[in-house]
């Protein structure tokens, strides 16, 4: 009995002290950040969180590795009226949906985010990458292909064209593709003779969707469909597949960090964005803390620092020249960025508007096609 009373009193004191501290600064002293886990979250921890915590004594940050289910969980939290997250890392398409659903807070980018060192406003520095009023971009990543160098058939060149994915004669072997229509449909049309600028016009129509599925049908028996970003690197390392699509950072770690006989095929890589959103409805002290953190974590130097730990391109234009070498391997990171001119000769940008509209429809067809 006495013990529990002491405990109660102590926790009450702690709460009171924490409250007094927070009131003094107007900011909460703990944050719950949501991210993807793995190497990516590690890079955020190293590049933003550790310096921030070192600068702000008494502030703590906890991670929740729930970004993959962030949209559903935020909706559930919102319905329950209890938002436990302070800052959520999501891909841009999810940010747009969260914004549409009123689950993410709209922000004024110029007011919230730090300007570039030369004084350029944040909104100009991020430019087109601000794809939604709620979205605070962090990195540019790409979905692209990696292949086993030791499985390239004798006499054939290493694959350098997206259509080698569909070319079973020259490059036999299994492929890994993501278990969703996005990107796969575009690649299929591109290799079925549709010009790059017409891809989405064609994909809007029923015939176009059938055409893309028919093209995918030609390799369906040779495809392993993945749903987690770690699948393709694993399949490549096991020699289960000849080539497969995944996020470029995952391939970087297979190639450079794990030294596997794998190489990149950058052709027709699809750029996508990842960034923060602030959940709608945070209490004032937590919001103040999050704003303070986001301003720090998305400034020019911090975004450039992140590239030391993972091969994703910083979303700010002003960060690009500051990208240096890998923190452990010491290799130059610039040539491994998806945005590097050598890698970005033929690229796509994820078409957010199109997929927001057609996602439900095409996904139904795609899944029906898969299940047959």
């Amino acid at each position, binding site marked *: 009995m006495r013990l529990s009373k002491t405990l109660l009193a102590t926790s009450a004191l702690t709460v009171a002290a924490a409250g007094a501290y927070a009131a003094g600064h107007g900011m909460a002293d703990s944050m719950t950040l949501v991210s993807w886990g793995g190497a990516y979250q590690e890079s955020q921890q190293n590049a933003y969180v550790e310096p921030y915590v070192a600068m702000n004594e008494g502030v703590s940050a906890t991670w929740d590795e729930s970004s993959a*289910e962030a949209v559903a969980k935020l909706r559930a939290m919102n319905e329950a009226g209890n938002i436990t997250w302070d800052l959520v890392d999501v891909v841009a398409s999810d940010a747009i949906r969260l914004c549409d659903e*009123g689950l993410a807070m709209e922000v004024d980018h110029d007011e919230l985010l730090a300007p570039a060192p030369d004084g350029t406003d944040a909104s100009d520095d991020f430019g087109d990458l601000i794809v939604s009023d709620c979205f605070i971009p962090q990195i540019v990543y790409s979905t692209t292909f990696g292949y086993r160098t030791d499985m390239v058939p004798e006499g054939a060149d290493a694959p350098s064209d997206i259509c080698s994915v569909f070319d079973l004669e020259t490059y036999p072997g299994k492929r890994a593709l993501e278990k969703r229509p996005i990107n796969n449909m575009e690649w299929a049309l591109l290799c079925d003779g549709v010009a790059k600028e017409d891809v989405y016009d064609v994909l809007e129509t029923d015939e176009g969707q059938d055409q893309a599925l028919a093209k995918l049908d030609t390799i369906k028996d040779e495809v392993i469909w993945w749903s987690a970003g770690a699948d393709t690197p694993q399949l490549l390392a096991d020699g*289960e597949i000849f080539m497969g699509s995944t996020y470029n950072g995952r391939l970087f770690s297979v190639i450079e960090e794990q030294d596997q006989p794998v190489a990149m095929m950058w052709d027709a890589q699809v750029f996508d964005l990842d960034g923060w959103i602030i959940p709608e409805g945070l209490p004032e002290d937590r919001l103040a803390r999050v704003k303070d953190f986001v301003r720090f974590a998305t400034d020019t130097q911090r975004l450039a620092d992140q590239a030391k730990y993972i091969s994703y391109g910083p979303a700010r234009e002003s960060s690009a020249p500051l990208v240096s070498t890998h923190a452990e391997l010491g290799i130059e990171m610039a040539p491994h960025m998806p945005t590097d001119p050598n890698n970005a000769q033929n690229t796509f940008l994820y078409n957010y508007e199109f997929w927001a509209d*057609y996602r*439900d429809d095409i996904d139904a067809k795609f*899944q*029906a096609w*898969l*299940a047959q």
Partner: protein
Amino acid sequence: MTDAATEPDKITGPTPDNALRAADKADSGPVLAADGTPLKRSLNRALRAQKLRALMLIAPLLIFVLVSFIAPIGDMLFRSVENQIVRDTLPRTVVALADYDAESGELPRDEVFEAAYYDVFFAAERKEHTRLGSRLNYEQTGASSLFRKSGRGIEDIGEVYLDQFEDLDENWDEARPWAELMGDPDWIAAQEAWDGNGSMPEFEVRSDISDLLPRTAEAYEIFARFMQTEEGDSPLEEEPWSVVHTALYQDLAENDVSGYTGPRADMLQAADELVASPDFETIAFRDGFEEIDEDWVAPEIWQTIKMYSPAYTSGYFLNSIDMQKTAEGPALRDEDERIYGLLFQRTMFMSLVITFSCILLGYPIAYLLSNLPASKANLLMILVLLPFWTSLLVRTSAWKVMLQQQGVINDVLVWLGMVADDARLTMINNQFGTIVAMTHILLPFMILPMYSVMSTIPPSYVRAAKSLGATNWTTFWRVYFPQSVPGIGAGSILVFILSIGYYITPEIVGGTSGIFISNRIAYHISSSLNWGLAAALGSILLVVVLVLYWAYDRIVGIDNVKLGG
């Protein structure tokens, strides 16, 4: 599984129940308790107290189950028919569409466009239009961006009027004159006196103006209250939205305001003259919508809104049986979009296969367990339970390593020369992989109930049968097996119901042909956010399980199921 000891009549001791019966049977007048009250009443009181105590004891569990299990499931299932978002977001449009004939293939009346203008405008200010857009996008492709675009473009219609009124008199784009024109003088005084503490005095529209300019009064009131409650700003300092100017134009075009003498009468009458002049530029709502997006002047979006305007819909259930609502009534989906029927069938079929494989593999093990000496049986039991204590993901991933083409089994077969190196077996990312992995994962759920039933079968029966001349097979089949059936029944129900709802393992090893309906439910919960459809699919799954349970009860009898001795 009834326990004899719980039946009151079988207890011979002095329980309140028995005493009550004894009191009933006694025919020598009312028996009195020690304190003089009739025994019956006093016993009843004791009994009630006892029952209450029992209820109090289970109350925490009961409340816990209600709050954490029944209520959320009920709420989730309710979503499969709930559809209030359309009428909540577009209330005027839904009313105006009431007599619209969706089958006609024509555009609705102009009044509908007018109603939609006001609805979409207010929804956009409240940021609810995009949510409705995502909802309708499940039914009609393109609704999502249509509503997002309309939220941005809807201002343009009102700007036409706002600009002209402002050119006439700048006061039309000022906060204070509007407040004086529309607001009750008492409210204005109260708002001015408000010191910033507590809540603002709620906006009151002046009574004579709401008769004179009904639309404007309504629009301004919505604006003023929104400013007060959502933004925390005083309407005395905020310029009204352009929707108020549109409403003003409509009112002035219809009503005569020459007799008006209240505040800002000059300003209003000048505006009235402007509206009456032939130079005044107007825009039909329909044209305004067409300018935002051409999809608004196609009948499809109106048919969809009309179809989903009731507060409850069968749409989600139709979707989950591969049908869809159309203007002509429910119809089957295109063949290339039918998926759920196939997945339900596949889920049933594979769950049955998994259940039978579990019976086949589990029965000998359970038999062995119950017939071995205790020390050996315990060791075997640990082997059965060991996988049970390992993470599900680890076990599933281990199967991946075993079964894949460059995996352990294929490597061994190639090494033995039984399979050619270029013709390795495909044992994963298909139905086979799912069945193997799930049989392994669910095996303990089959073995444990079987074992607990088998260990209660007296060995003397088997010995008796043998001593009477039965062969080993007859002994097993006629004597032992029938007594072990309740264990099989319990195990089968457990395994079947568990496997019907599995989704992690099929997702990892199932490829495309080995996925279950639960994978689609998970997709709609976490990715597409179509919770209504997920709820409908879940409800169907629940009903299927209950029906199967009922059928099982009819055929085998649920009394014939035992989880233990």
